[in-house]
């Protein structure tokens, strides 16, 4: 099968959905001729015109709120927030409006919108352009949160998100944009809320999110040579979470390491651990391990940023702790 990048897979999903459904349109900062800060929407304005690929002023609240209003009024907007750090500016819209509309109106409205946004550290962009914030939205009933780790997942989930009648927050890891993988050319969907075992194993489960999936896979490869069989599970959708795939894996391996790029306290890793303990406590043979970012802002300097981001060494050490 042909290989394309994560970025190209997202662009292909957008293009195919815009061709399929004229209600689908894009809005965001510098997404038109400029192609988006990470180039994801490059060329789409030439194909679909400025009515359907809308450059907005720097107004995150208006972007999120207008996408919400357009969705309630029957369109299917795909909004882009340039860095997920800036969802803070749209927080009232997303949390108090977007997520609540359907419920508080007694089910008499739908909000079929997608908000795409780049996530994560590793680019030297420091504390306001590098955060992992998806966990905030996992805490908001009414939202769906997706963080794909591969080009194939990115395309399949984005198409599902666009066709879904709920608001979906779609977190794209910046360092994955150039990552290549096999992606079918035709349109396909992957059901939201369904995780995937990225590598089968029997000794320990590593439950990893977004780019951490790749670091976990690398460690699994290395440990395989040492006779340790690591199972890597990717939830792919953080809300709703595929709890069953996590519980089943832990029941099989009896050991769990959760890897997530967000700060440790109150983080997504803690949620995953709680689910595993609730669903597979009797099966556990070792204390559960969390590998997460420290409770600090993301630093600028290269050695500091490297120390901040969970890496293969930390994952390996955590796995080994469960095997002691």
């Amino acid at each position, binding site marked *: 099968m042909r290989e394309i990048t994560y970025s190209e897979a997202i662009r292909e999903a957008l293009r195919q959905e815009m061709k399929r459904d004229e209600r689908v*349109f894009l809005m965001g900062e510098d997404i038109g001729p400029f192609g988006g800060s990470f180039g994801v929407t490059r060329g789409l304005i030439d194909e679909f015109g400025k*009515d*359907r690929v*809308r450059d*907005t*002023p720097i*107004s*995150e*609240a*208006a972007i*999120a*709120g*207008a*996408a*919400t*209003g*357009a*969705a*309630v*009024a*029957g*369109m299917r*907007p795909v909004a882009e927030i340039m860095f997920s750090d800036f969802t803070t500016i749209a927080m*009232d*819209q997303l949390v*108090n*409006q977007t997520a609540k*509309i*359907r*419920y*508080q*109106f*007694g*089910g*008499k*409205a*739908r*909000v*079929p919108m997608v908000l795409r946004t780049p996530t994560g550290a590793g680019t030297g962009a420091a504390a306001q352009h590098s955060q992992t914030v998806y966990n905030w939205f996992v805490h908001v*009933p*009414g939202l*769906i949160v997706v963080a794909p780790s591969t080009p194939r997942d990115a395309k399949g989930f984005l198409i599902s998100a666009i066709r*879904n*009648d*709920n608001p979906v927050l779609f977190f794209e890891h910046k360092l994955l944009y150039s990552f290549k993988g096999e992606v079918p050319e035709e349109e396909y969907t992957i059901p939201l809320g369904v995780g995937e075992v990225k590598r089968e194993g029997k000794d320990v489960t590593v439950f990893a999110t977004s780019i951490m999936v790749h670091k976990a896979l690398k460690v699994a490869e290395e440990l395989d040579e040492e006779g340790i069989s690591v199972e890597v599970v990717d939830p792919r959708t953080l809300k709703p979470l595929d709890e069953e795939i996590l519980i089943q894996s832990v029941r099989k391996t009896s050991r769990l390491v959760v890897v997530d790029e967000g700060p440790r306290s109150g983080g997504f890793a803690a949620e995953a651990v709680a689910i595993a303990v609730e669903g597979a406590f009797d099966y556990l043979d070792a204390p559960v391990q969390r590998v997460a970012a420290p409770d600090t802002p993301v630093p600028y300097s290269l050695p500091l940023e490297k120390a901040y981001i969970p890496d293969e060494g930390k994952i390996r050490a955590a796995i080994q702790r469960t095997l002691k």
Partner: protein
Amino acid sequence: MAVTKPAEKTLTREKKLEMLRTMLKIRHFESRVDEFFQRGMVRGTTHLYIGEEATATGACAAIEPTDYITSTHRGHGHCIAKGGELPKMMAELFGKETGYCRGKGGSMHIADVDAGNLGANGVVGGGLAIATGAALACAMRKDGRVVLCFFGDGATNQGVFHEAVNLASVWKLPIIYICENNQYAISTSVKTAFNIENIADRSVSYGIPGVIVDGNDVTSVYDAVSEAVKRCRQGEGPTLIECKTYRWRGHSKSDIQIYRTKEEVEEWKKKCPIQRFKKRLIQENLLTEEEFEAMDKEVEEAVEEAVKFALDSPYPEEEELFEDVYA
């Protein structure tokens, strides 16, 4: 902006009487809500539209049933003016299954999406961006619809006001921003919260028309909104209309009103939108005192029927808690 086409000439008697009836509906509905609130039968909080009836009524009379509105925390009047059904509204306030939101929204979240009411809002300024997005949908579909976005004076000091109005102006969206300047954001007077005399002046910074209207005069509101609707339908973009009005009651249940004088309230009560319009209609020989009494009684009875419906309706089942989080 100059307002042409005075409503006195263009409105039929039937339409004028309908506007009077709508204002009476709001007045009676709100008066009953106030009572039920005092008696603890309406929970949480509630914000009454008494004294401001002409604004919602005149504005909604200038649009079509297929057009959209967004409303505010003080939203009962907008809902009624947009054709909302009193029984479903009252049932919602009582938290009943038969309410507009099946009892899950309450006073601050009444919506009737099928009728174009995209909802009241518990956040000051919360409807501004949503309304702008609805107008974007109308513009992209070229369906000729417009959006009336209601908000108070307080909302214009929210950042999202700037973001939303600017976006609508650069995209020339079919939306009318209706600022109900009722003089106070809870206890904070517009005199303390603004360094300008008229909120409509803010339109200058968006390059759109700004109109100041007597918000207690239903036909003035109708005229200004009609003009703005015409601009929208011709693709000329948004208008900001400031309706100067006054809420007779406190901001909400807990308001002891230490920030204004009784005299000030009494002065504004003299400008009662219903009495003014009634007087005018009688002068124009379009209404008699007897006809008014009959209409008033009829409306009062309709409100009582809504109350009865609400009281007789069941509460939602506990399972309802989990329904409609997602589509």
